[in-house]
Each structure stands twice: as C-alpha cells, then as structure tokens.
C-alpha cells in the first residue's frame, strides 16, 4: 500500500514531497518509512568562508502519531515530537521545547528491538552540547565529507503524547542514494523508518 500526500512547509517556503509507506500489516504497530524529510537544506556554500548559505537556521518539526510536519509557528507547543536541522536532532523537551519528549540511542538492530527495557534511561535536551540525540546517530568522514547514519543505532523516543517510538535513520541525502557523493547529492534530507506504538506500551510486536 502506498500513498502520497503533500504538506505545505511554511518555514521553508517550499513544497516537499513525503512518501509514506507501511509494511508488516499483521502487527499492531506498523513500521513507517519517511523519505526525504528536509532538515533545513542549503542552496550551496559561500566560496570564501565555506559556510552554508540559503538555510533558514530553523528546525523541521515532526509528529510521529500521524506522520505530519508541524509548522514552526507551533514550536512552543506540544504538537511536535522531534526536530531536524542539519545533522542535529532535537526532542520536544528541555531547552528545545515545552513538552516532555525524551529519548536515547540504543545499539541494536531496529528489527530486533521488540521491547524497550524498563531500566532504560530516557534523556532530555539539557543544553546545546547535551542533547538526548544530537548528532550521535551519525558518523562524519572528513575526507569524503559524507555524513552517514551509524549502522545499528536505533533511536528510542518517548513522544510528546507519552507514546513510544523506535526509529532508524537510513539516509541523510536526497533520494537516499546507495553511495552518496558530497559534491552531487543534496544533504540534510532525512530518510528514516519508525514504529509508533499507539497503545502506550513499550512493546513493538
């Protein structure tokens, strides 16, 4: 089953296509894949300073329960769970937002995480350098200039509505190419899969 829909992404002032796919229809909590969610993309680099240009410096907010991008106007509300900008990921908590979202990164395969263990420690966004997720999901290669999602890093998130999500980031480049090239492929486009457990339990089966 496959359907497409369009969301007007106000802060970026352009239209982005999100592709939502559902697999594994037998289980109660479905795994959903989001393709090319923009995390404040740039239009290029300043030739003299090397700094990115064309970016808005604003996060893209996302709500897991209905796979929706939330307007930046609602940044101070509990409407969103997670935010993306460049390679930084924030959760709606602490310094990032007013809600009580929390999370951590678990070393383990997305498909093998069937339950969140009760002794897990959920972290919130304490400071700019002490974020629950931050950049810790990724590995940067200074030679190839490629940022790749570190394999085996599964994000465990408690949403603003108190429900649990497991999530794996699959690609940081537009179109999720098999071997991205920093000179060719546009960065800051997130492709990820996640499972939202609507019944409030910590089980994903």
């Amino acid at each position, binding site marked *: 089953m496959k359907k497409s829909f369009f969301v007007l992404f106000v802060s970026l002032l352009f239209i982005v296509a999100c592709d939502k796919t559902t697999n594994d229809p037998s289980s109660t909590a479905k795994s959903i894949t989001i393709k090319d969610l923009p995390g404040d993309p740039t239009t290029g680099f300043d030739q003299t300073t090397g700094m990115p240009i064309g970016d808005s410096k604003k996060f893209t907010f996302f709500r897991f329960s209905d796979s929706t991008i939330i307007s930046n106007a609602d940044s101070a509300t509990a409407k969103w769970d997670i935010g993306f900008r460049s390679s930084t990921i924030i959760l709606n908590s602490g310094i990032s937002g007013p809600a009580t979202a929390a999370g951590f990164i678990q070393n383990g395969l997305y498909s093998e995480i069937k339950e969140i263990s009760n002794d897990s420690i959920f972290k919130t966004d304490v400071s700019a350098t002490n974020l629950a997720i931050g950049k810790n999901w990724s590995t940067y*290669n200074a030679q190839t200039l490629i940022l790749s999602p570190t394999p085996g890093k599964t994000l465990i998130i408690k949403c603003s509505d108190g429900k649990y999500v497991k999530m794996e980031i699959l690609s940081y480049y537009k179109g999720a190419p098999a*071997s991205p090239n920093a000179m060719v492929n546009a960065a800051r486009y997130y492709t990820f899969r996640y499972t939202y457990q609507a019944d409030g339990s910590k089980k994903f089966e």
Partner: protein
Amino acid sequence: MRVHNIIALFVLWCSVVASSWSQTDTLTLDDVVITATKTERSLVKVPLPVTLISAKEIQKIASSRLQDILAEQSGLIIVPQINGLGNGVQLQGLNPDYTLILIDGEPIIGRYAGTLELNRITVADIKKIEIVKGPSSSLYGSDALAGVINIITNKFLTNKINVNVKLAERKTSDASIDLSYAKNTFSNQIFFNHFSTEGYDLSKNIYGQTVSPYSNITAKYKLTYEWKRNHEFQFSAKYFKEKQNNEYQVIHSLDSIRVYGNGYITDWSLFPSYQYKFTNKTNIIARTYITNYETKTDLKELESKSDYYNDEFSQRFIRPELQSTCNFSKHQNWTVGVGIVKEFIRTNRYGDQNQRKQQTNYGFLQYEWNPLKNWNLLSGFRYDYNTVYKGQWSPKIAIQYSATKSLSFRASFGTGFKSPDFRQLYLNFNNAAAGYSVFGTENLKSQIEELMSKQLIQELFIPLQNMNVLRPESSTAWNGGITYTIRKHNITTNVFRNDIKDLIETQTVALATNQNFIYSYSNIKRALTQGIEVNYQTTIREKIKFAISYQYLQAKDKDIIDLIKKNQMFGRDPNTLESYKIKQSDYIGLPHRSRHSGFVKVGYTIPKIGVEINVRYIYRGSFGIAGTNGTVNGTLINSSDRNSNSIIDKYDDLVSPYGLVNLSLSKEFKTQWMLQLGADNLLNYTDPTNQPTLIGRTAFIKINYKYIQNK
C-alpha cells in the same frame, strides 16, 4: 646520577672482561649476521627469524634504492604511507613506523608521520641487509616492535673502484661511485651517488603529477684504521640532500587549490667508533652517532602567488654507546651495553620555534648459552629511562635446537615498544579554516587550562586530571619455526603472533566556545597480528634457482573483535539502507593487510652465452583501505567501506589481488664489467585510486664496472 651509576657499572664490567681475555677462538666463515645479537654470529645458529640479503642478490635484480630490494623479500610488504606520499615496509602485519631501520647498526631518522621514505636510501654501497623479525627492543629500544632492518655498508681493505650507472624510464637516473684506497690496515672509502627522476602521473585529468620530480645526492666517507691487530678505529660521515619540485592541487574544503614550490631534505651523520679486541670473541666498542635531518617546504598558490604553506622541521639525534662482549667460557657469551640518546626537534608545527628535547638513558644485557652441542639459548633485556614516559623494560628469550644437521627448531618470546613521537607530545596545531586544534599531550593540560581561564572552553570531554602523559606503545610477541635443509632443498617456516597495546590514537578532548573541537592523543587501541611464513628454495642442476615464499596474515583491532562478540558491531546495506549485524567471520581486519602474499623467483643462467635471467612474481592478496587515508596531490584515496561502519569487513569493496612481475637480464664481461637490462612491473599494473604510490612499468639499463687491485 643514573648515568654515572651506569658508567661505573660499565667500568667494573670492563675489568671483568679484561681478566678473561686470554682465551682465543676461531670464527667460522659461514653466513654471519650481526643484527640479532649485536655481535657477529653464524646465521644458522641464531635462534631468531633472520633473513640475510647478500650484495649479490641486490646486484642481480639491479636495484638502486632500498625499496626495490625490500619489495622482493619474504614477509615484507611495501605499503603507502598514511598520507599517501611515499612507501614504507610492513612487517608481520605491523605498520612501517614499527620497524626500526638502521645503517651499520645506527638508526636513520626523519620519519614523516612515522614512515621512512625508502627511496631516500641508496643500495649501491651495501654489503648486505639483515632483517630480524619479531620485537627486538631488548637490544635496540624504541621502534623495534615488528623487527629490525639493518643495512650494512661495504668495508674494503683493498684498493677498489666500483661504478654503477642505471638509467630508467621517466628520466630516472641513478649513478654512483665507490672508491677505496687501502694501505696495510688503513683504508679510506669515498662514495658518491646521484639520483634523479621526473616522477610520474597516474591521473592525467588531475592537475599536477602523482609524484613530482625530485633529485638527490648522497656522499659518504669512511675511514678504517686497525693497529696492533686488536685496535680498530672507524669513522664514517654521510651527507644527503634532496630537492623536490612540487606542483599539484590540494583539496581544501570543497575547493581545489593549485600550488607549487620546492621542498628540501638535508640529512647528515657522523659516526666515530673504536673497538678493542681482547680476543676474537671478547671486545669492547665505544661509538657515538650524531645525525641531523631537516626539511623545508615552501608552497605558493599558483594563481595568487601568495604563500600557501610553509613548513620547517629539524631533528637531531645524538647517541654515545659503549658495548662489550665477553665469553667467560666456551659455551657462554655475555654482551652488555649502555648508552644515552638525546633528541632535539625544532619546527613551526609546534606553534613556536622553541627546541623540544628528550633524553633516554639505557642499558642492555644479553646472555648466550650453549648448554649442549645442539642447544642454543639467547636471553636478555634492556631498560630505557626516558624523560617523558619514564622506565621501560624489554625482555627477550629465544631457544634453538638442532635435531639433526638438516633440521632445527627455534622459538622466541620478546617484547617491543615505540615511544610516543614528538608530534604526539608537542604538536600545537590550529586549523581555523577546518575548525579544529590538535595539542600534543605535553602541551595539552596547560593549553586547556589557559583556554579555560579565558572562558573559551564550552565543554570538556575528559577531566583535566585524566590528561596524563603518554605511555609507549608496546607489544609482546611469539615466534617459532623450523628450518629443514636436505641436499639442495631448503625450507624455513615461522609462525608469529604479536599482541599490541596502548596504540596511540587521536582523541577528542574538548569543545571550544567557537564550536571548534580540540584533539589530542591517547593510548587507546589494541591490536593483534598473527600468521605464518613459509619459504622454500632450491637449485636445479646448478643452473636454475627457484624460490617461493608465502605469508598468511591476520591483523585485527581487538576492540572491534570485542564489539562483535557483544553483538555491537553493525553494517548498513547500501541498497536497502537497513542495518545488520557483523559476525566475527565477516570482520577482515586492519587496512592494507593482505591475508595472502608471497612471491615466486626463478633464476636461470643460459649456459653458452652466460646471461643470467631473473624473473620474480610478487603477489599481494586482496586488502581493504581505510576511509581516513586522505588525499594524494588532490586525488582522494578510495575507502573500501561500503556499509558505513568504518571497519573492513566482507561487505566492503576490497582492492583486488594483484601481482607484479620484475625481470632482469645480467651479463658479465671479463669479470670487471656487468651489463643489465630489464623492467620492473613488466606487466604495467597500476591502480591510481587505491595505490597511487605503485609506479607503472619501468624499463632500465644498468652498467657496473669494478676494479679490485690484487695484493
């Protein structure tokens, strides 16, 4: 204080030696090696894996630089430097920085990021090369972790002229003259070599050459004087100068900048030594080695003519050493030595022009014992005391048993270490453009404290009290082997295992308020290498010489092995983009290690015309390349990693196995002239993206003239 005590002990030792000098013994005229025990010993009786390369072997393949000859030795693999510039030698799976390279027992300094450029060294005046595998810090101290390569130069006691001229493709020329004048026991030797090449270019579409043109000269003088048959004085001096004409592009962020300019290397050494022989086997040697290495590079941007990069580096190494060997009885030999190493470095890489220095005081003791006719025991240790990392013990024990005349077994255990280099201790590097700084560990604490007092540190990743001094990298190793000789067949094997700990890696220390990261060095990594080496050689009807060599190697990061054990190592499928687990059997190991490598060599002398043909096939099995290899003259080196986990595993894109064929034809005329023709890398195998330091086919012609005055 320590030094005085050591000298006092030494004087005491000398008086003991002097009292036992009445004994005499005759030396056998076998193949003799010096490197394994620091005393001349018969090769077949040394309980360590030692390879001996004779001058004849060096000559018959018409090699001119050290790399040519080392590339064709069992268990040695030529690998590119970390930064891709030049090559080094990998021994038992350890990186080039872990093999100590000596000329006449004294170290060659001037390693760039740890690797010694092998093309700096001419082989035209070499008598033999000895390679000891396995850690040898019990005699040589730091850097002898994988082994020791000792280049022993000619020592003539006759009047001799030796001239070599080699011309090769790419305007490469290597010419040398070796002159000796001897009268009685007084000999003078002058050696001069000139090498020049226009370099080569493997990627025509990229600006500049893969290797820029360079030329160098080597001048040497050696004086030997013996008197009363038991005094020997030797003095040698060396001068080397190289000029590089650089012109290439560098990648800076996303831009490429064309740069040009000259680079210079100047290297000199002085080496006086005096030996007094009480008997043939009991002696005392005093020697002092002084050497200096300097580089200077000035690069300018091609378009703007503005300075792009200036680099100045100078290193000095001074080592006085006293050594004495004594045989108390026929079956027991003692060797003792003491010395001091003083090293000085001055470079703009450390943020100022101040001189940094280090001192190491050391002493070693070695005991050789033949309890029974066919048993050989070698044991010893060395203690190094360094101003930075304090004390380091290096023990060694080895045993050899000759079961029959044709069959012998040996086993050895030893430790090795490599002291932190100056860069790791004193670097003070600030790359504002790329947004990071690197501090050597000796500067780290004060630099961080200063930044903290200025409120410039946002976050500290390791506490100040944990910013400790670096320990040396160290290893323990086992070697064991069999030698079997029957008629014209010779088989040698060696099994090895090296466990290396405290490997020094860069570590993120702090985040500055301007969001720049601050790095330093730390003893964090552990690794292992293990394998087996098998060599077989034979002669068929005096005309055909055949040799085959094979090495099986595993080289792995122990922390990765542990992560896989804990199910914590993953890969990402580039197509489905999903993660999966890496199994122990999937993990291949450290970069640039070929599991299989070896060679086949055939030599044949055509009877009637007397032309000797030597063909060598050098094989290297597949291997991976790490993603952090960087750029070479603007060309990005490939990374094997295809599943984003930064380790080399079976899902990665490994470099395919390859073989190089080298050919030489030699013909002697009137015993004084020799003409050689041939080609290295005859099949012209190149791989610009993976191996930019692998040069294409090089045809050559070489003429040798030698004249020895008969007495």
